């Protein structure tokens, strides 16, 4: 049962370009295309605040308006590229059906936290997780979900 895409999500122009749903044979063009897929997946999940991508439930692989869709192999290719770029992680590495989307990369998050710590005088001191995301001087981008990922990934 694929989720329905809410109307508020604005699709990029290339989503209606039929060749977008065929993995390009020419390498240079393929690089560009995979980059566009990465961008699309990331933006979709970030804007709608979805944490996990379930492979067979994701509505992005099909565009009924232009009657095109990605085949199973192509989906796998796109996902492999997405994971290797560091924006996601397999929750089940063996079966590879669920992927946790990292809205922000761990490195980015780490530097965000460090910057926050420096600007609020928390360097070289201990602070609780609560302070990080909801305390007096908390950083806007640090929501509870992020912190879970951060600890888990640390």
């Amino acid at each position, binding site marked *: 049962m694929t989720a329905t895409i809410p109307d508020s999500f604005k699709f990029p122009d290339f989503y209606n370009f039929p*060749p977008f749903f065929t993995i390009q044979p020419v390498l240079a063009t393929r690089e560009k295309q995979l980059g566009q897929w990465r961008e699309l997946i990331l933006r979709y999940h970030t804007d709608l605040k979805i944490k996990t991508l379930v492979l067979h439930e994701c509505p992005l692989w099909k565009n009924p308006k232009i009657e095109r869709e990605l085949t199973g192999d192509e989906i796998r290719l796109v996902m492999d590229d997405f994971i290797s770029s560091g924006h996601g992680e397999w929750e089940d590495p063996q079966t590879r059906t669920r992927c946790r989307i990292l809205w922000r990369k761990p490195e980015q998050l780490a530097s965000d936290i460090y910057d926050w710590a420096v600007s609020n005088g928390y360097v070289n001191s201990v602070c609780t997780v609560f302070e990080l995301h909801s305390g007096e001087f908390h950083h806007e981008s640090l929501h509870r979900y992020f912190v879970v990922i951060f600890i888990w990934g640390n």
Partner: protein
Amino acid sequence: FSRPLSPFYHPSSYPYLRSPPSSFRFYFFMKWALQSPPPASRIFNHNIYILPTQYPMSHRRRGVGAARAGAKAYTKKAEEMNAVSLARAMETVEKLEVKLEGFAKTHKHEIQHDPAFRAKFLEMCAPLGVDPLSAEKGFWGNMLGIGEFYYELSVKVAEVCLASRSRNGGIIRVSEVKDILTQRGTKFKFADSKNKSSYSEEDIVTSVKKLSKLGSGFRTVEVGKSMMIVSVPEELDDDHMKVMDLAEENRCGAYGVVTVKGVTAELGWDHDRAKRALELLLGKGMAWLDAVGAEKYYWFPSLWMQNSNEMVSS
């Protein structure tokens, strides 16, 4: 007898002076006939018609020996007359330049701000060899400063082309460039910035011409009804252009798409030639592959974007 035709029929060598041929004189005739023609004037191809009445009696009806000497005299006269015409023409051109400078001064504001007026003004300058676009310190550079304007515009156009290169393979429509630039809200440092500088598609084409002087392969080509800018140095031969024309004119089912079958049907090529052209365009990144089952469609991103916008808005 019928007059033999001179192999170099130039009016100034018209055989007014030939005497009736005879076997003896035929030899000299052939020598004369095979001489090279008088030098053509480079700038003004006036036909110099020398009427026999301009010449003193002694020149007329000489023997054949005079034909050779006569040809030299004609050449000399032709050069003299050319020199006179040239001097007169140069004078006229100088007068025109002065008038043009005056015109530019009075209409400076329109030239700087109105694209249509600017285009007409450049049209006027072109045949005179005046190039107001060179941003040098001469009269034109300082006064109008439109050299600066085109310089800035060409830099922005180059930016847009480079940024879109990975998507469309280095070929892009002029109107798309204009849309992107207007969307970005680019301002120019040139002229007063309180009036929004307006520029037209002709301005973009002129700035690409400026860019092309730098080498690097920037040029414009016409595909169907639209003008495209090519920013890659690769050659686009005739076959490719014909295929893109097909795609642009929507002759294979939709805007910006082409199939091998479509190409063979519309252009009458054989299967291999069509396939080769399409594969080459694919390899350059100018076409993207769309495989639906067993069917293969070749889409051109540079020709597609525009029409998708049109279709959405209509």
